[in-house]
Every structure is written in structure tokens, then in C-alpha cells.
């Protein structure tokens, strides 16, 4: 009788994922956006750093070019990095997981500053978090920059530009920019984690397990980040449309009155 109900070991993955889900997402804040210090082996740390450096370099070059015309640009980028740091430290309730997580903030910085400088902003915020809050890490900073700074910013920026070119309004474009920036970060982090910890195990099954394990928090969090980004863009549009014009987010013809 017992044997009839016995499940094969391979099917236990579901059970273990449920266990991991409950242990990860119902006991504490989910820090799914950052890979912890030391989690990646030396080779993968090096590879992600090597991938991140050209983007940081390009961001620095863009910032230098823009700072030549406007001296306030460097302080502005620094201050926006402080804003990203603060909002990524703030717990946001995730209803489906019954816990708190935090937004990445890259969607909004990608819209305002463009993907290159947004990646730079994320790098600075991640560096300070790694060093002084032990969130993320220095050996995993390259990987975290690639997932949150590069992939998040690129996804947010590209979708915002595509939707704006299709004449969708700021609110909807902002929503999808925030949503996809968050989900792109989540998917990239899952890829990095699977590659880093797999050892001899096959890559795709492990990746699927990680994606499934993070999904209950990250899917609703992405939607929340979408609403947040949309709300921020609309607030800036209502209060200071001149700033959005200055950052070339909107055209002068789009400003009422």
C-alpha cells in the first residue's frame, strides 16, 4: 500500500522547492536581487567582473561627456545613486509571498539617465551596500552589476523607448519599464546563480528550479516595481516636467500649458 504512494526522488524537487520557498520567503526579507558575497567561485566572479567593466567604462565616458556641458551632472548621478540605495533598502510588502522585498530602482534611473549611466548608478549603490551593509558582495559585485545595472537598465530603457515610439502614454510605458527591468534582473540573477553553484549538475534543470523558487516573490515584486516606476514618472511629469524635458524623457510638445 505504502509503495503505491511513494514518489520517486526526482519528483521530490517540488517538495524541496516548496520547503525552500517557505524557508526563504516567509521567514525574512527576500534579498533576491543580490548574490551574496562568496557564493560564486573565482572563475565566475572574474567572468562577471570582466563583463561588467566595459559597461561601467562606457557609463563613465557618457557621464564625462554630459558633465562637460553641465557641471551639476556628476552630483546629480551621485544623488540618484543615493536614492537607489535608499529605495533598495526599503521593505515593500509582497502580498502573494506574505513577506517584504525591495525594489531595484533601475527602471526609473534607466528612464531618466539612460542605460549606461543607470548601470553606473546601480554599481555605486551596490558597492556601498556590499561594503557597509553586507548585502551583496565585492566578489559578486560584477555579477550583481551585470544583472541589476546592465540587464535591468537595458530592459527598462529599451521597453520604455519602444512603447513611447508606439505613442503609448508615460504611465503605461513607465509601468512596463519598471516591470521588465525587475524581471530581467531576476532572470539574470537566476542564470548567474545557476552557473555559479551547479558544480557537475546539469544547468537547465537547476536554472528552472531557481527561477521557480524565486518566482513567488519576484513576479509580484516586478508588478509592484512597475506601478512604482509609473507613479514616479507621473509625479515628475506633474510636478517638474522641465526636468523630464532636460533629461530628454519627454518632448516640449508633450507638456501641457
Amino acid at each position: 500500500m505504502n509503495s503505491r504512494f511513494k514518489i520517486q526522488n526526482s519528483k521530490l524537487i517540488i517538495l524541496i522547492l516548496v520547503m525552500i520557498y517557505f524557508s526563504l520567503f516567509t521567514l525574512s526579507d527576500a534579498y533576491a536581487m543580490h548574490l551574496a558575497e562568496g557564493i560564486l567561485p573565482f572563475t565566475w566572479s572574474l567572468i562577471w567582473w570582466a563583463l561588467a567593466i566595459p559597461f561601467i567604462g562606457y557609463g563613465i565616458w557618457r557621464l564625462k561627456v554630459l558633465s562637460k556641458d553641465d557641471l551639476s551632472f556628476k552630483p546629480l548621478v551621485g544623488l540618484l545613486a543615493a536614492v537607489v540605495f535608499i529605495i533598495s533598502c526599503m521593505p515593500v510588502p509582497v502580498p502573494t509571498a506574505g513577506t517584504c522585498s525591495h525594489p531595484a530602482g533601475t527602471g526609473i534611473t534607466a528612464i531618466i539617465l539612460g542605460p549606461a549611466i543607470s548601470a553606473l548608478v546601480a554599481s555605486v549603490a551596490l558597492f556601498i551596500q556590499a561594503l557597509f551593509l553586507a548585502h551583496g558582495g565585492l566578489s559578486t559585485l560584477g555579477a550583481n552589476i551585470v544583472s541589476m545595472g546592465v540587464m535591468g537598465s537595458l530592459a527598462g530603457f529599451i521597453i520604455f523607448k519602444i512603447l513611447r515610439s508606439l505613442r503609448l502614454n508615460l504611465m503605461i510605458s513607465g509601468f512596463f519599464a519598471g516591470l521588465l527591468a525587475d524581471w530581467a534582473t531576476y532572470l539574470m540573477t537566476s542564470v548567474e546563480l545557476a552557473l555559479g553553484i551547479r558544480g557537475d549538475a546539469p544547468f537547465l534543470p537547476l536554472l528552472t528550479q531557481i527561477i521557480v523558487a524565486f518566482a513567488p516573490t519576484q513576479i509580484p515584486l516586478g508588478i509592484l516595481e512597475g506601478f512604482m516606476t509609473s507613479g514616479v514618472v507621473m509625479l515628475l511629469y506633474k510636478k517638474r516636467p522641465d526636468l523630464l524635458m532636460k533629461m530628454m524623457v519627454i518632448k516640449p510638445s508633450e507638456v501641457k500649458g
Partner: protein
Amino acid sequence: MEFFTEQFRKRHFLIEVDPRVKIVASVFTLLLVISYEGFLFPLIIIAGCTLLCLKMKVPFKVFIIRYSEPAFIAIVLILLKLFLSGSEVLFTLDMNIFTLTGYQDGLLNGLMLASRIMAAVSVIIVLGFSTPFTAIMAGLSWFKVPKTLIEITMFAYRYIFVLLEDAMVIYNAQKNRLGYSSITRGINSFSTLTGSLILKAFEHSQKTTIAMVQRGYDGNIPFIKHKPFKHLEIAISVLFMITLGALWRI
């Protein structure tokens, strides 16, 4: 946020050590930790770093908070490896409706990964508690990290505390007016809070630039000139790294 490392740093023997020496020693240790395959070396690092934290009088509560997140991740990874990877069966639990199998090699891999995480985090915690932020930035500038990157990191660090105060005022005002009483209101309030912080960032950047230009700012911030290296510090750090290298090879 109230446990930001900077607020708990006290005067101790490591504060006086040249930040460049501490950066090199920390990065070297970190590289050894993440390239090690085993338990012994990470455990030595964890023990050493814990002793250093005690010596630096890091408050116990802060110490626990710093370690709690990586420790939690480490435990989950041990479970993940124990049940999901490996070939040598360590135990089988017959739970009536299913069989739970733990693998010996999976457990060993998980423990190795966990010890690596805890050791790497320990190194960064010691660096954070032993070196002021401005000193780390000055040290990085000596290592030719791009000046622009250091400048914006310094701006970010300086304004985190200013903007955090603004954020707390707005957040408390929103909370007192039931701004987070439902999901919809919560999202609206959080968007307003973030938007307000971005507007404040624009305002502060304008004001800061004007103030700095009046004091001769031309787009570049001058950095602290580095003191010459102390021979004793160099000798001790070289000895420290050779010892670590020898332990790593065991």
C-alpha cells in the same frame, strides 16, 4: 539602515593602518577564499575575522545582523545541495508518502559553499568596520580606480544620510495618514516617496554644484594626498599574505 557600519566604528588598532594596505590584504584574502575547495581555510578566516570584530568592539547585535542574511542563504544552499545534487546516498527518510534522500557529496558541497560564503562575508565585514568610507575611496583612487566613479560614490555616500532623513520624514507623515494601510495606497505612497526623493536629488545637485563652483569646483574633486607607506605595515601585511597563502595550500 540604523545599523550602517559607519555609525559603529570605534577607535582601534586597525583604524590607523593605511587603507591601501587593508584593501590589498582584504582583496587577497577574498580571492583565496573564493578559489579554495574545502573547509579548513574558510573556517580559519571566519575565526580570525570574528576575533578581529571582537577586538574592534563591534556591538554583538550589529555583528549578528551582518551575519544573519548570508548565514540564512548558506543554510538554504546546504539544503539545496544535500537533497538535489550528489550520487552517494547518506540517508533515506521514509515519510510514508514519499522518500527523502540526502546525498553525502551534496552535503559536502553545500557545506563547502556555505563556509566560503561566511568567510568571504567575514572579510568584507572586517574591512567595513576597520576603514572609514572616505579612506577606502582615497585608497581606491591610489589604485587608479576612475576618478569619476570615486567622485559619484562620494556624492552618493554623502547624500545617503541627507536623503534618508528626508525619506523618513515623508514616510512617517504618510504612515500617520494611513498611506500604507492597503496595497493600492501603499504603492501610491511609495511612488510619491521615491518621486519626492528624486526631486530632492535634482534640487540638492543644483544647490551643491552652485556652492562648489563658488569654491572653485571645475568638474573634478581633489582627493586626499596619500601619506607614504610605513615599512612596518608593508612587512606585516606581506607576512600576513604569505601565511594565508601557506594555509591556503594545505
